[in-house]
């Protein structure tokens, strides 16, 4: 089964997100006269694109990590936070879509011989005999397309909300006392321990 055609919009959005992430960070660093930083992010973006082209799963994680570290360093160098926020959000979208495409490719590989066997069998068959195969293929493609739509919709909402909240967090300034910071730290550690417990349960 070839799912490349229905996947192409996702691939396009992933490529655009990668370019936007690289461009936002490069522009942010460039506007701050950090041209080396700009070059690094352009290179990182290109490397990530190459990784996407050759379906390297690890490149997604490395790409997001690179852009996140770059955004964090940008706050130290005084890069305008808006660019950094846009960059990290776009990188998150690209990271997500990279994994989503891999996920659908696994499904594609799950059914290795269908097309070949159909091709050899239909040599002597009529169109009516071939109809069930087309049905199966159409059903799977329709389901893949539906899941793709739902995924993109969820991702758009999540990234839009994240961008909005991030922008809000950048504009709203709160002064927290040391006690509040300690409480927040404890909550963070508690949440981390819960997460680890959850992951252990799942791995069991």
């Amino acid at each position, binding site marked *: *089964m070839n799912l490349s055609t229905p996947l192409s919009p996702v691939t396009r959005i992933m490529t655009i997100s990668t370019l936007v992430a690289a461009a936002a960070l490069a522009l942010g660093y460039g506007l701050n006269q950090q041209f080396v930083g700009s070059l690094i992010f352009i290179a990182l973006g290109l490397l990530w694109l190459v990784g996407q082209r050759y379906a390297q799963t690890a490149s997604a*994680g490395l790409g*997001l*990590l690179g852009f*996140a570290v770059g*955004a*964090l360093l940008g*706050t*130290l160098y005084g890069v305008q*936070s808006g660019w*950094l*926020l846009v960059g*990290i*959000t776009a990188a*998150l979208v690209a990271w*997500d879509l990279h*994994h*989503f495409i891999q*996920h659908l490719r696994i*499904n594609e590989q*799950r*059914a290795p*011989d*269908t097309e070949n*066997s*159909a091709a050899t*069998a239909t040599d002597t068959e009529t169109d009516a005999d071939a109809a*069930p*195969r087309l049905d*199966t293929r159409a*059903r*799977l493609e329709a*389901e*893949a397309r*539906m*899941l793709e739509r*739902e*995924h993109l919709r*969820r*991702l758009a*909402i*999540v*990234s839009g*909300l*994240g*961008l909005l*909240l*991030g922008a809000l*967090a*950048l504009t709203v*300034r*709160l002064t927290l006392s040391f006690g509040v*910071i300690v409480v927040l*730290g404890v909550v*963070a550690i508690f949440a*981390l321990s819960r*997460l680890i417990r959850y*992951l252990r349960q*799942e*791995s069991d």
Partner: protein
Amino acid sequence: MRRLLFLSLLVYGLVIAGLVMVSGNAVALAMPLVVYLAAAFVFSPEKPRLVITRTLSANIVHHGAPATVTVTVHNQGTKLEEVLIEDAVPQGLTVTDGEPWTQTSLPPGGKTEFSYVVEGKRGNYPFRYLRATVNEHLGLFRQQGWLEVGANLMVLPELLRLEHLDIRPLRTRGYAGPIPSRLAGSGTDFFGVREYQLGDPLRWINWRASARHQHALFTNEFEMERIADVGLILDARQNNNVVVENDSLFEHAISATAGLAEAFINDGNRVGMLVYGRGLEMTYPGYGKVQRERIMQALAHARTGDSLVFESLDYLPVRFFPAKSQIVLVSPLRKEDLSILTRLRARGYQVLVVSPDPVTFEAQKYAPLSEADASVQLALRITRVERELMLRRLRRVGIQVINWQVDQPFANVMRTALVRPVMPTNRIVRIER
């Protein structure tokens, strides 16, 4: 799972770095990731409550015939954003159409169905498990489980169709059939002449014999045709099997046995079967279509095996076969089998040996090698001579032997070998002049 851990660590990294650097902007950068994580957590799937049924278009199919497997999934729990159902297709079956999996989303009370077509070689294929994987759209949280949904597909062996087989067991059963019974009665073949008795049809009177006597009339007698007991023995000893390039001599023996069973049953005979190898797998004698199905199913299950006890044919349960009945042994044969076959013959059984030729089978598979190497050629000749001598010894004790080279059509071989012999006159009528 790795993605969830990776993203969580990234969020923590950004937050902690923000706290260390006392930078609100750094913390704000983690916001899209936090929202992403939170959304995945909120929509994380509960343990799915799925009711899955698997139906087969037929539980028993013939060799080469496809079977359609239909899996129906009912969601009796909450909404499942993304559910992947994978059917574990038993090893040995090939999916020829459709896919044994589906991926979709299911609302509460929703239902989905998928079908695929499988084909396989002879055997029994138990379907057991299906794997269900449920996750939310972002794919961070996932639930996975195996569900046991049983079904069974049996593929019957390939059938080598045969026409009527002429056999001559010493004893027949009491019902009319196609086998000459060595008894006088109603039939078609001439059997003898006896004195006329009241009630004999006039057209049976032998006028030529009667003309020689002034005060006596003589009547022709015919040989009754009855059904018989036939016992099939399939040799399933591992040592006797030859496997070359995924082609097994045993599979040819199975097909031959299936063809023989069908031909004998079609003639109305009472047929039983014994698979001798791993153990003793018996199909008790019976008639008709039901018996045919029993034998075919037993053949579908038949496997070669090793057993110290059944290494030779010495433990053949002779009492399984009615006295003086027809025994058909399907076996590549080995030297040690000669004694038991001779004993069977001595006990009054009519023995027919159908022997798939292992020497030719193996030689043909290694043809290029054997043609090139003179020593291989010599070994082949010696083995052939040994086998021919063994078969001659069997023929000498009155056992019918059919040496079947499996590349030749079985029906032709049987037709040629089982030409009804000219029946010797076993009843002499002395006519006194």
